[in-house]
């Protein structure tokens, strides 16, 4: 067999969130899936050996896309392609991130599915982090929401307790938000070495409300570079401010990266710094 998930036998399609939660609560070795595409990547890497069953969430109506004046709300099983084709005016960072993903993955992969992997290479995670998203979670007897930064506990480690599932995600709709996404990879559609999502506002020639998210081949989930953000906030929008802030990404500790067979850690830091500078220059129109 091609994959080492020999123990995987069961496949459930619950009709309600409650039913899904109770299946997951009573079976420790079941995992929820939506599109299911990431499963095969992780199992090929030997990360899912103990899984005995899938609980498919696609049979539950969790695929709504809603926009109000204050928020955009996406159901967990909205696919990347549905989001791209929706009537919503998508923030640049989200639209650009979606277009770096092959159509074949966009057809199947879901907003909630990729989120729950907490995977730093998944482009939408970086975009949603830049957009200050909030994750909506339901358990068998409770509902809660949590900021995306806290939700990303670690790679393949969402902040979910047993029996909880993500039902949706929402992010604030900000007027005059400038945002963009950039990615460096070895092939046009490959997993990112480094990717950068920025979302910011400019008022009277000064930066405000800056968020800089970095993903790629990190040792962690996607992260915000708060040092870079701090060096921009309240400062004049100039080439110099932007270059100086972007250089802070080179500092030890800004990014937790290692050397691997594709790239050295120094090169990843360098890419992060360059992509941050270029993306900010682009979104502010310099």
């Amino acid at each position: 067999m091609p994959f080492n998930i020999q123990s995987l036998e069961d496949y459930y399609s619950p009709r309600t969130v409650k039913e899904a939660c109770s299946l997951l609560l009573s079976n420790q070795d079941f995992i929820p899936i939506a599109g299911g595409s990431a499963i095969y990547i992780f199992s090929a890497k030997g990360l899912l050996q103990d899984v005995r069953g899938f609980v498919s969430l696609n049979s539950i109506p969790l695929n709504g896309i809603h926009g109000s004046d204050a928020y955009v709300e996406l159901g967990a099983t909205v696919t990347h392609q549905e989001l791209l084709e929706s009537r919503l005016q998508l923030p640049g960072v989200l639209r650009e991130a979606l277009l770096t993903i092959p159509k074949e993955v966009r057809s199947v992969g879901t907003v909630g599915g990729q989120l729950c992997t907490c995977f730093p290479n998944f482009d939408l995670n970086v975009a949603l982090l830049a957009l200050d998203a909030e994750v909506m979670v339901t358990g068998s007897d409770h509902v809660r929401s949590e900021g995306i930064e806290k939700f990303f506990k670690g790679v393949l480690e969402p902040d979910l307790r047993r029996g909880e599932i993500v039902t949706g995600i929402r992010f604030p709709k900000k007027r005059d938000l400038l945002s963009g996404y950039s990615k460096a990879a070895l092939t046009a559609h490959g997993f990112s070495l480094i990717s950068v999502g920025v979302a910011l506002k400019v008022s009277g020639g000064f930066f405000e409300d800056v968020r800089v998210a970095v993903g790629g081949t990190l040792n962690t989930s996607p992260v915000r570079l708060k040092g870079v953000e701090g060096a921009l906030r309240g400062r004049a929008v100039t080439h110099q401010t932007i270059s100086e802030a972007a250089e802070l990404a080179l500092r030890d500790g800004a990014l937790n990266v290692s050397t691997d067979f594709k790239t050295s850690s120094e090169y990843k830091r360098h890419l992060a710094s360059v992509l941050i500078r270029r993306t900010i220059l682009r979104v502010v129109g310099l």
Partner: protein
Amino acid sequence: MRISLRVNGEETVVDDVKARNTLLDVLRDKLNLKGAKKGCEGEGCGACTVIVDSRPVYSCMYPAIAASGRDVLTVEGLEMGGELDRVQKEFVNRWAFQCGYCTPGFIMALEALVREADSNPSKLREVYGGKVRGIVEDALIGHICRCTGYEPIVETALLLLSEKGLD
């Protein structure tokens, strides 16, 4: 588990499908449809691409059971009465393949694009801001040709779109 689905227009029942099986496993090993290829198993080479409910998907990353009740189209389902279809003919005319391993994937990606252009051309224009080359690159970005014969494939795609009024 037993699943039933439509494959190339025919109602098909497949027995003994495991949760771990992919749609590609079922197509190749149970239905003997060898057009879709196993290339990279998850990194994105595109050789396994088929169409599920009008959308292109990587069948090596698609749980077989999730295809239950759906409409699956593979490269084998394109010819009609022994005749190649429009996309296939254009591939032959332009010599848009060399070793051929990636070809079924590229063809299915273009089949999906042609269907999209038929069903919703205004959405295509809107998503890509009217840039036809952008539409083509996005449709083909998830495919690798190791013989590097991309140009004739891109030309084929541009021609097919221009026939649909997109140029």
